[in-house]
């Protein structure tokens, strides 16, 4: 590994990464078309683009998951061929995946050395790994306790372990794929500090994201991708959010949600002292009470995994109420009156699931089958014995037309739609019946900017028609701009409430990390000072 680094010293001026005319097709789809990309040494380079713009494909080519159909990869001034992630690591490229590749039941040290042990004796390996880890930690300011159990660490710290893993393997070029999705605003700031420290020590960082504010905040240069091509390289200092958004989508985009002030009326959905214990007896929901009124959008902010999912499950009838009660359209639902998701729908509740791949749709189904999920027993889709497949197809076609789902083909497998179009179909299915109460989990997760605008408009117009909407989102900007009132959840409890006009990222961020509460040092567990 080291000897190779020495040979490239002569080319110190050349860029860290120089991709030339990269092409990659999957069947008829051209994922990358003549992509050129130059990443200067010791810089932070942002790559931004909508889903399906080809960012991930390009990074997968660089990291050896795919091979390009044609094109050249130059690393540190040398023409390189990368056939596997092993090649990529040898070349000095490290990757931090969006979903961490860590083993929860290993210690930090074990995770870092896994697969890169220096000796066949575990004791010897640990010893040398520990020394190296110590060196990296001090050099880059990445403090983590090597003996902490990885699963016990806060998400931000787990991400540090991922970065350390890459550095341990000699990475000089670090690719981070959507690194901030699971972090609180404070943790994001910590991550940015780390990235700056890396840059100062000559590490080149490639940051893949769809969040414009991150690009502006941290990168030196930014490249926009659209439809598999590199649209524009820009110096970050010389551009702004609006220009980048326009480059990504190819047209002008409204970044704020355009809506009138809310006119809240009677309460349509109420949670009273909901408590939910999981199978291990841990409270996932802890005495949660809230009200959603007709004509308002209530937002639930929080770092993911703090009870939002469980709350949605209880409010939609997926999980039975254990303690407390739910009042939906005047009907009281508690442990003596357990209703399932279908019964909730009959009480005029719509529910756009947080995770469409796990819950909201069946990716192996065709779009037409997905379009009736939850309504499969409605008489309009059924004959006396058999389902009325023609009616199902027609229903789907009409949803697709009203909500501009593309491609407009009810028979296409759900998996073959883009994230935005899948989400539009899910939202269409739930909104089309004009439910009195709509629950929306992560309205725009994995959805491109153009579709975000459309989805927000649909939610607002449902509100304006006098219905109650509850939105759960981990995107602070979205909660602040879409909702009228915001509550913050932390460890299954509601820790704060405010009107959206009074909210800012700082205030919400502190509540989300429960900095105001008792155990505020939670995010620093495991750090060696």
């Amino acid at each position, binding site marked *: 590994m080291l000897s190779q680094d020495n040979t490239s010293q002569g080319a110190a001026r050349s860029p860290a990464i120089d991709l030339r005319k990269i092409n990659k097709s999957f069947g008829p789809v051209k994922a990358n078309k003549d992509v050129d990309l130059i990443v200067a040494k010791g810089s932070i380079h942002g790559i931004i683009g909508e889903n399906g713009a080809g960012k991930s494909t390009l990074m997968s080519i660089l990291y050896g998951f795919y091979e390009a159909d044609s094109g050249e990869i130059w690393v540190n001034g040398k023409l390189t061929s990368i056939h596997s992630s092993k090649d990529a690591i040898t070349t000095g490229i490290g990757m931090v995946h969006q979903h961490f590749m860590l083993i929860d039941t290993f210690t930090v040290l074990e995770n870092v050395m896994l697969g890169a042990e220096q000796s066949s004796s575990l004791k010897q390996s640990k010893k040398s790994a520990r020394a190296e880890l110590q060196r990296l930690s001090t050099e880059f300011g990445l403090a983590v306790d090597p003996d902490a159990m990885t699963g016990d660490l806060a998400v931000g710290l787990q991400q540090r372990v991922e970065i350390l893993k890459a550095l341990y393997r000699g990475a000089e070029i670090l690719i981070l794929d959507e690194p901030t999705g699971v972090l609180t605003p404070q943790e994001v700031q910590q991550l940015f500090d780390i990235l700056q420290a890396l840059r100062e020590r000559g590490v080149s960082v490639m940051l893949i994201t769809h969040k414009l504010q991150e690009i502006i905040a941290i990168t030196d240069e930014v490249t926009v991708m659209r439809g598999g091509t590199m649209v524009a390289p820009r110096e970050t200092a010389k551009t702004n959010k609006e220009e980048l958004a326009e480059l990504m989508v190819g047209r002008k985009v409204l970044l704020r949600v355009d809506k009138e002030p809310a006119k809240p009326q009677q309460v349509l959905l109420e949670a009273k002292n909901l408590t939910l214990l999981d199978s291990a007896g841990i409270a996932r929901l802890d005495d949660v009470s809230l009200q959603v009124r007709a004509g308002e959008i209530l937002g639930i902010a929080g770092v993911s995994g703090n009870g939002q999912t469980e709350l949605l499950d209880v409010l939609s009838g997926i999980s039975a109420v254990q303690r407390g009660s739910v009042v939906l359209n005047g009907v009281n639902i508690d442990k003596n009156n357990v209703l399932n998701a279908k019964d909730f729908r009959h009480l005029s509740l719509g529910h756009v699931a947080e995770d469409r791949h796990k*819950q909201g749709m069946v990716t192996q*189904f065709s779009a037409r089958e997905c379009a009736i999920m939850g309504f*499969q*027993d409605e008489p309009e889709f059924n004959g006396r014995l058999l389902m009325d497949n023609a009616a199902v197809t027609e229903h789907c076609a009409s949803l697709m037309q009203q909500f501009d789902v593309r491609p407009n083909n009810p028979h296409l497998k759900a998996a073959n739609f883009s994230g935005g179009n899948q989400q539009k179909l899910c939202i269409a299915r739930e909104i089309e019946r004009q439910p009195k109460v709509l629950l929306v989990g992560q309205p725009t997760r994995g959805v491109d900017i153009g579709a975000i605008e459309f989805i927000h408009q649909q939610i607002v117009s449902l509100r304006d028609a006098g219905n109650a909407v509850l939105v759960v989102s981990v995107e602070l900007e979205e909660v602040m701009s879409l909702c009228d009132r915001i509550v913050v959840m932390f460890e299954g409890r509601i820790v704060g409430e405010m009107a959206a006009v009074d909210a800012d990222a700082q205030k919400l961020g502190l509540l989300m990390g429960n900095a105001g509460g008792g155990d505020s040092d939670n995010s620093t567990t495991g750090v060696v000072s």
Partner: protein
Amino acid sequence: MSNKTLPTWIDVGVIPLINVCLAFLVSGFVILLIGESPLEAVQWMITGAFGYAEGIGYTLYYTTNFIFTGLAVAVAFHAGLFNIGGEGQAYIGGLGVGLMCMSLDSFMPWWALIPFAIAAGAAFGAAWAFIPAYLQAYRGSHVVITTIMFNFIASALMVYLLVNVLIEPGSMSPQSRVLADAAILPSMKDVFAVFGVNIANSPLNIALFLALICCVLVWLLLWHTRLGYSIRMIGFNEQAAVYSGINTRRTIVITMCISGALAAMVGINEVMGAQGRVLLDYVAGAGFTGIAVSLMGRNHPVGIIIASLLFGALYQGGAELSFEVPSITRDLVVVIQGLVILFCGALSLMIKPTIEKLFMKFFAAKERANV
């Protein structure tokens, strides 16, 4: 990327075909190893299975059983359940068929009896599947484990019943009395005779038509009913099914009962047809072969018919082969059948990546040529 998929015709046509060929290739080596000519062996197998009328009759008779058990596995599989208990369900189902026939055959001809026999068999098979299904849905005991155990229980129970209860008085072998002639299903020979066509005698009977009807019914069930919609949703994504307000536990139990009832139809073919009585071990592994049939047929009724035909031919051709070539014993025929099951079932995805790569290359070349 998600669109890295092969066209359907390669996935369900070419790949299984290559798998079968690979299995035969390896079988060929085994036969070479014991000093026989593989080509000759293949010849014997093919003539044995399709070369003459009686052979074809036997092939289709086995096929009938495999269609039933294959459908049974497939229906459960669509709900994400691996029903290994087809063997026991078919066995107990046959008991139901036998008991019903024996109580009514003195005054009812087969055509009046068959609805009752089907109902009794289905009820017995479904009941045998119900217990593992209930344990899976409401108690979390894995259906693979429980259905395997229920095969053993079925086997022991049947031995007990045949030895102690159902045995024909005065008989030495553990089997029930023979049904009245009029109660036994007409063989294909009789059917063809009605149209004035004379074919060779074989155990093949009109249960084959019942098997084909079941294929249509299963197709309708899975893709044209609410229940089928629920079954498939549970199989793909149980969380989505809960989200859609489907009672997953009840659906799982119903699915397994349907599966057990389908396996039980082997009893119609055997007890009411070919054998005309209940006897020991008449299922003869058809329940297990159903797993391979269903896997190879991609859990689709059309695929199951084709796969059943292949396995029917293997059974019949194999029997013929071991009869004609003495050094290839029955056990070696089982090896060949085992290899086919191995390649088509367990290793069915082994060659997929290679085919995918080849296809992509070919496709890319064609694309470029078009540009």
